[in-house]
């Protein structure tokens, strides 16, 4: 699939390969998450070892299956396949018991094992159907590759539907609630020097924007601006601060507020390359002196209120183009993050 897909472009020139890769990982993940009992067929046609080959043939023919487990006193005693039955046919041995021709060396899987175990067993043994037993070795179902495909598809559809429903609900927020001015406010407390969680609030904000129906481009722009603002709180403030994002149908207001130490010369802080980041932050690759410059390039309006020994308030605003407005978000769907 590689060459054609690599050349296929999604909307806005984005290759769709990323998404494909995500789907594939999700399938791989599901093969570990899903248990065999969740995807197996519970309706199993079994035979008893003392039934005749003729009975066996009849069951396989009418149920249109290629093999059946043989059960004795609830326990799995063997498996009979069309191949085994054909051997009996060539011997003209239709009245013999199934016991004589069944394979007793049965490969089976446990119901509580992950689906990947069944996939591995299919690949290793080349069989197409596996009996499934419980912890007491009793037969509880059968599993085929088809069952797995179906199970995975159902799980993926469920994932997808859950995210769709969530997005649908959130997206219609601005339409469903009538007021003269509706806004959604997200607040995050950012702790000083909390580098480990740095960027978390920005990620949450970006996801919220996408769920509200923002375009990928708009969500990215907000993500960059709030990331830089969030990191400023972590790197520079004495006591951390509040990151506040106010989403309205026609604009996004982002704001950080802290109580010090303040910026003595705001104009200097706005110069590209100017930084007062401490060594600890510089060692981690912060302090390029590009934070405010980056923010400026992502927003329509930026204002800083500060002074030495005072707190700092950074205000950022993005005006939404008519096609970006949240109330008109229908049809601007973008793949998520």
């Amino acid at each position, binding site marked *: 699939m590689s060459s054609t897909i690599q050349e296929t472009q999604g909307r806005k020139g984005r290759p769709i*390969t*990323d998404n494909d890769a*995500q789907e594939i*990982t999700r399938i791989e993940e599901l093969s570990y998450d899903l248990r065999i009992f969740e995807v197996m067929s519970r309706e199993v046609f079994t035979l008893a070892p003392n039934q005749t080959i003729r009975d066996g043939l009849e069951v396989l023919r009418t149920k249109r299956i290629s093999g059946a487990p043989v059960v004795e006193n609830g326990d799995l005693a063997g498996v009979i396949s069309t191949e085994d039955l054909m051997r009996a046919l060539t011997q003209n041995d239709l009245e013999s018991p199934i016991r004589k021709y069944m394979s007793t060396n049965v490969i089976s899987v446990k119901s509580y094992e992950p689906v990947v175990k069944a996939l591995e067993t299919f690949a290793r043994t080349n069989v197409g159907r596996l009996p499934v037993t419980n912890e007491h070795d009793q037969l509880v179902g059968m599993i085929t590759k088809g069952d797995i495909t179906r199970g995975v598809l159902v799980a993926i559809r469920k994932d997808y539907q859950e995210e769709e429903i969530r997005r649908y609900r959130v997206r219609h927020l601005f339409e469903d609630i009538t007021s003269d001015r509706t806004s959604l406010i997200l607040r995050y407390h950012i702790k000083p020097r909390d*580098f480990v969680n740095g960027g978390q609030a*920005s990620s949450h904000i970006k996801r919220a924007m996408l769920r509200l129906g923002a375009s990928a481009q708009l969500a990215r722009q907000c993500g960059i601006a709030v990331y830089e603002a969030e990191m400023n709180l972590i790197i520079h403030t004495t006591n951390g601060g509040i990151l506040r994002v106010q989403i309205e149908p026609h604009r996004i207001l982002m704001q950080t507020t802290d109580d010090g130490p303040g910026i003595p010369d705001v104009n200097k802080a706005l110069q590209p390359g100017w930084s007062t980041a401490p060594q600890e932050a510089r060692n981690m690759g912060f302090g*390029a*002196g*590009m*934070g405010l410059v980056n923010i400026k390039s992502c927003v329509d309006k930026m204002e800083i209120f500060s002074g030495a020994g005072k707190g700092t308030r950074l205000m950022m605003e993005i005006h939404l183009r008519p096609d970006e407005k949240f109330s008109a978000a229908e049809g601007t769907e973008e793949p998520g993050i």
Partner: protein
Amino acid sequence: MTLQEIIAKLNLKVLTAPRNFSAITPRGGYASDLLSCVMAGAQPDNVWVTLQAHMNVVAVASLREVSAVIITEGAQPEADVITKANEQDVILLSASEPSYAVIGRLWKMGIQ
């Protein structure tokens, strides 16, 4: 050029969970150890070459939607960084060579 080929040719170690790397095609690259420069300069689907190996690399890579991060000079991220990267679908690769050599080789391979 798929990520699979890049991993093989540059002999990179995959630090995060295995994926179908042959379905991922990076488009161009970006190199910097300064995170704000990456935020400003990296494009979605770039490979990002850096010496940094700490938690914030994951946040920047995820927000910037780069296709993979190549951490150079064998710098080893902490386990919680790798866990976070897996959660956020960020691919972390490790190169034993320094950034200069890695970038040179990527350029020669046509990642430009």
